């Protein structure tokens, strides 16, 4: 090799470069040079040549097998990904179709019930009862006058104490909602999230979830009820007392306004009942 003299000079200065140079210097198997002197011209020459060809074929085989398998691996990863994407899209479409179907069936049920119950006086009573229960339970969208309670975090965190306490907590909203029910509200909603029979109001980290949807300050708690009596009844209720207490202790801001215009509320998102089933007609009759 031509670079042998420079190699010896670098060897003393930089060990890693010396290592590389040594590997490069012995790149050609030294066995070739050794055997070159003591060449046996005859004997197993033929066998050696055949073995050489076999080995070369093996090299080619190894290389092509590696290339083929590497390509197949990449292709299978690709196809796996795309099939997963397709599965997810399929499932999404199925969910959308099922939701549409559920809405259509629910409309059908409502229409059939109206048909069945509307013909007789008793039936009409029952229909009205069902509707009022549905409103109270939360699944039906409603409008009506009422009261609007706006609760907001303190403007400044208190110098002393936990900064988390100067924010509105889930218990504050729970107390407000309970106070509103207590003072005669017929339907309650927080920032567009209807509070129904299965609604939970709770914090996860620093975020308040209503119906498992995050709501942020300012929290507008609307209630449908008598717009004249509801505000004063609420102030006197446990919810009103709670709000006054936290506004004194933690500077939580709140306003209470009666609303004579219609407040629109969406229905509560349909919860999934896993354990509760309707009582069947037979069991009801036997009691």
């Amino acid at each position, binding site marked *: *090799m031509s670079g042998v003299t420079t190699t010896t000079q670098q060897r003393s200065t930089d060990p890693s470069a010396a290592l*590389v140079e040594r*590997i*490069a210097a*012995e*790149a*050609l*198997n030294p*066995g*070739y*040079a050794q*055997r*070159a002197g003591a*060449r046996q011209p005859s004997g*197993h*020459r033929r066998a*050696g*040549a055949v*073995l*050489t*060809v*076999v*080995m*070369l*074929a*093996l*090299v*080619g*085989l*190894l*290389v*092509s*097998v*590696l*290339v*083929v*398998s590497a390509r197949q691996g990449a292709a299978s990863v690709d196809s796996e990904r795309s099939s997963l994407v397709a599965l997810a899209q399929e499932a999404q479409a199925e969910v959308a179709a099922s939701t549409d179907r559920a809405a259509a069936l629910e409309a059908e049920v409502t229409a059939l019930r109206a048909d069945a119950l509307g013909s007789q006086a008793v039936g009409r009573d029952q229909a009205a009862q069902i509707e009022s229960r549905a409103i109270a339970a939360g699944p039906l969208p409603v409008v009506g006058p009422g009261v609007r309670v706006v609760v907001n975090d303190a403007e400044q965190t208190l110098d002393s104490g936990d900064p988390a306490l100067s924010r509105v907590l889930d218990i504050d909203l729970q107390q407000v909602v309970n106070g509103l029910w207590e003072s005669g509200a017929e339907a309650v909603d927080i920032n567009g999230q209807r509070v129904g029979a299965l609604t939970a109001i709770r914090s996860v980290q620093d975020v308040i979830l209503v119906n498992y949807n995050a709501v942020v300050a300012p929290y507008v708690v609307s209630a449908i009820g008598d717009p004249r009596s509801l505000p004063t009844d609420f102030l006197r209720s446990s919810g009103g007392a709670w709000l006054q207490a936290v506004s004194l202790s933690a500077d939580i801001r709140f306003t209470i306004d009666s609303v004579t215009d219609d407040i629109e509320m969406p229905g509560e998102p349909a919860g999934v009942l896993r354990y509760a089933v309707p009582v069947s007609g037979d069991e009801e009759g036997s009691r």
Partner: protein
Amino acid sequence: MIPVLGLLAGIVLGVALDVSVPPAFEPYLPIAVIAALDALLGAGRATLEGVFDDRVFVVSFVSNVVLATIIVFLGDQLGVGAQLATAVIVVLGIRIFTNAAAMRRLLLGA
């Protein structure tokens, strides 16, 4: 000429036969191929320098492939498989480049 034909035959066979690698051997196939390429380039350079010897080639080829695979396999068992594979690839890579450069000088004179 015949050795080159053997190489081509191996490539064609590998593509045509659709050989499936056993999963246990799959991680070591790239290392084996690099080792085989090293032996191949060494043989090519030796041929050009007129010192080629089939016994040396066969022995270096087999020992290269087997040794590289065993080293990486052992490394895997000891939890340093990736590092040892890198070491083997660096060493063999330097040798492959050096031999390729030597062949280039011999063939093209540059």
